[in-house]
C-alpha cells in the first residue's frame, strides 16, 4: 500500500477559449488558450486533509474536476493508491472510481430536483452494484442517520430541505459507495456560518470514524486552517506554496501567501496592523510573464518579470519564489 493515497505530478489543463473557427478565419485571430492549471504537483497522504486555497479563478475547481475525472488533464499524471488514472480502463477503473467521491459547493445545483432523496443517495450504490433490494433502503437509512437526518427523509425531495440539510444529503450520497477519498469543492461557501460549523464538524467526525482522506478546497483561510493538516496555495493556476497547516500560518514564505494572510479580517481584535494589499488578480488569459505574481509583489526583482521561479524547499514543504531562492543560496 502506497504512503500517498493521491499523487499528482505536473498536472496542467488548458482550455481552448478561441472564437468559433469561422470568426477566427474572418477576423484573422490566433487560437487562444487559457491555462487554468499549470504544472501542479502535490501528494495527499492517507487519512489527512490536504487543502487547496486560492482566490477566484486560481484553478481550484478545475483541479477538483481533474482529480475525480470530470475533466481530462492536458498534461501530467494523477495516481490514486499507486494506480495511474490515465490509461486505466474497464473493471479496474470502475473499482478505483468507487473509492473516491466529490462534494460540490452549491447544494442546490448538485442534487437532481426531480429525484427523491433516497434515490439520490442510492445512486452510487446502484452504479457500482454494491447492494440490492431492501439492503439498499436500509443502507440509505443508515447514511441519513450518519449525517444527522432521519431515515424518513429518504421519501422527500431536495427542495424540502434547507441549504445545510442539502449539503448533508450530498455528503450521504458521497459516502454511499464507501469511498476512502472525498474531494470537497467549497462545501460550505454557500452556507451561513452557524450552518457551516455544523457541516465542518460533521466532516471532521466522519473522517475520524471512517478514516477518510479529504482534498478540501476553499477560498476561506480560516476554514482551511480549521480543517487541513497540509495546505497548498494557488495563484493563477500555479501552486506557489505548500506547507503544514500550522507552519503556513505561523511563517508563510511566499509573498502571495503573506498577502492573503494579511487580508484576513482580525476577529480577535488584537489590533494587528495590516499591510495594505495591492492590486487584483490579473486576467488569466494573458497572465504576467515570469512569476505571475510579480505585478503585485513587494519583493519583485527584474528576474521575476522574465523567468518563472522554481520550487525552494521550506521547513515543511516548498515555495516557488526567487526571493527565497536568493535567501537559500545566501545562507
Amino acid at each position, binding site marked *: 500500500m502506497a504512503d500517498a493515497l493521491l499523487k499528482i505530478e505536473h498536472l496542467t489543463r488548458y482550455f481552448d477559449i478561441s472564437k468559433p473557427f469561422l470568426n477566427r478565419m474572418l477576423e484573422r485571430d490566433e487560437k487562444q488558450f487559457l491555462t487554468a492549471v499549470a504544472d501542479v504537483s502535490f501528494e495527499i497522504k492517507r487519512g489527512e486533509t490536504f487543502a487547496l486555497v486560492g*482566490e*477566484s479563478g486560481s484553478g481550484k475547481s478545475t483541479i477538483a474536476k481533474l482529480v475525480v475525472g470530470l475533466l481530462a488533464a492536458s498534461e501530467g499524471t494523477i495516481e490514486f493508491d499507486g494506480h495511474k488514472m490515465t490509461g486505466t480502463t474497464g473493471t479496474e477503473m470502475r473499482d478505483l472510481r468507487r473509492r473516491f467521491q466529490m462534494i460540490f459547493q452549491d447544494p442546490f445545483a448538485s442534487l437532481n430536483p426531480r429525484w427523491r432523496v433516497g434515490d439520490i443517495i442510492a445512486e452510487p450504490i446502484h452504479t457500482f452494484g454494491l447492494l440490492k433490494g431492501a439492503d439498499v433502503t436500509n443502507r440509505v437509512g443508515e447514511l441519513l442517520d450518519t449525517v444527522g437526518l432521519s431515515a424518513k427523509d429518504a421519501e422527500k425531495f431536495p427542495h424540502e430541505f*434547507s441549504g*445545510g440539510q442539502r449539503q448533508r444529503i450530498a455528503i450521504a450520497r458521497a459516502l454511499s459507495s464507501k469511498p476512502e477519498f472525498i474531494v470537497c469543492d467549497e462545501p460550505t461557501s454557500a452556507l*451561513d*456560518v*452557524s*450552518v*457551516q*460549523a*455544523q457541516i*465542518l*464538524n460533521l466532516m*471532521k467526525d466522519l473522517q475520524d470514524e471512517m478514516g477518510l482522506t479529504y482534498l478540501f478546497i476553499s*477560498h*476561506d*483561510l*480560516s*476554514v482551511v*486552517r*480549521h480543517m487541513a493538516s497540509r495546505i497548498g496555495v494557488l495563484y493563477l493556476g500555479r501552486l506557489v506554496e505548500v506547507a503544514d*497547516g*500550522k507552519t503556513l*500560518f505561523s511563517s508563510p514564505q511566499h509573498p502571495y501567501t503573506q*498577502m*492573503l*494572510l*494579511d*487580508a*484576513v*479580517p*482580525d*476577529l*480577535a*481584535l488584537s489590533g494587528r496592523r*495590516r499591510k*495594505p*494589499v495591492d492590486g*487584483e*488578480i490579473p486576467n488569466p488569459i494573458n497572465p504576467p510573464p515570469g512569476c505571475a505574481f510579480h505585478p503585485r509583489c513587494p519583493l519583485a526583482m527584474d528576474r521575476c518579470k522574465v523567468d518563472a521561479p522554481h520550487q525552494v524547499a521550506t521547513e515543511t514543504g516548498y515555495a516557488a519564489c526567487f526571493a527565497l531562492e536568493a535567501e537559500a543560496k545566501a545562507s
Partner: protein
Amino acid sequence: MTDALLSVRNLRVEFPTRRGVLTAIDDVSFDIMPGEVLGVVGESGAGKSLTGAAIIGLLEPPGRIAGGEILLKGERIDNLGAEAMRRIRGKRIGMVFQDPLTSLNPLYTVAQQLIETIRTHADISESEARKKAIALLDRVGIPAAARRIDDYPHHFSGGMRQRVVIALALCAEPELVIADEPTTALDVSVQSQIIDLIKEICAERGAAVMLITHDMGVIAETADRVAVLYAGRIAEIGPVRQVITAPEHPYTAGLMGSIPTLTQTDARLVQIPGAMPRLNAIPQGCAFNPRCEKAFDRCFKERPAPVLRDADGRKVACWLYDAIDTPAKEQANG
C-alpha cells in the same frame, strides 16, 4: 431627544400575502450617531437588507413599513413622497450594494454618471464637477483617474467597479452611507482593500456608515458598534469590542463560537442546532427559543425586548439578562 443622525424607532416591515401577513422586521430600534460606523450583522434572511431598504425608501411592494418611525436628524423620512425621498437618497444618504453593476449604468461613462450626480446636488459648472469627480476617483484608488474616468463600467474589474460605486455614493457628500454587503462578491485580497477604503474615506468626510454584512470579521475591522439581527429582530446591540469578545445573547455567543479563526484550530466549532426560522414559522416568545440551550418557560411565552446592560449602551434581548437601572443613560443611547 438625542443628537442621533439616524434614528430607527420600532420599525416593522410586513409583506401581505395570500396566506396572511408576514412580518420580516419586527420592532427594530437603533441610532446611528454622526460619523459613526454601525455594523448590522446576521445570517441570510435575518432582515439586514430590508432594514436598509426601509430606511432609504426602496422597499419593493408589496413590502411596506407597517409601524415605527425613521428619523434623519430628527425629521421623519419614512412618510415622505417619492420625489422628496429620491432627493434624500442622492444627497443625504449614499448607497453601496453587493453587486457594483446595480449602482452603475452600463450605457454611460463613469465621468457622465459622476458629473451628473455631483451637479444634481451642487450648483457647479461641468468642468468643476469633472475636476471634483477625478479627484474623488483618485481618492478611491483608481489609477490614472483622469484617463479612466471616460471609460464605461464594464472596462473596470470587480474591485475597481466597487471603488467607482463608492465614489458615486460619496460625490454628493452625504451624511450617511448605507453599504449592503459591499465586499461579499469580491476576492479575499480585494475585500480588505474595499473595507479599508470605506472606513477611511467616510471618516475623512465625516459620513456615518451603516455597514450591512454577514461577515463578523468585516464588522470587527470596521464598525464602532454592531447590531446583531435574528429573524427580523435585534438580539444584541452595542460596542463592537464588547459584543464580539464577550457576547451576552445566546445567539451572538453561538455565532461567534461557530466561526473558524486563524488561531483556534483543533477544537470543535460551537454548533447551534437547526436553522433560522422562515417568516411564516417564527416561534412565539423569543424567536431563538427552538435553538437555544438556555431556553426556559418564559422564553416560549413572552418575547424579550432589548434591555440596557451597561454604561456603554449595550442592549440585549434575552430573558437571562436584566436591565441595569440608569434610565438617563438609556435615553441617551437610544
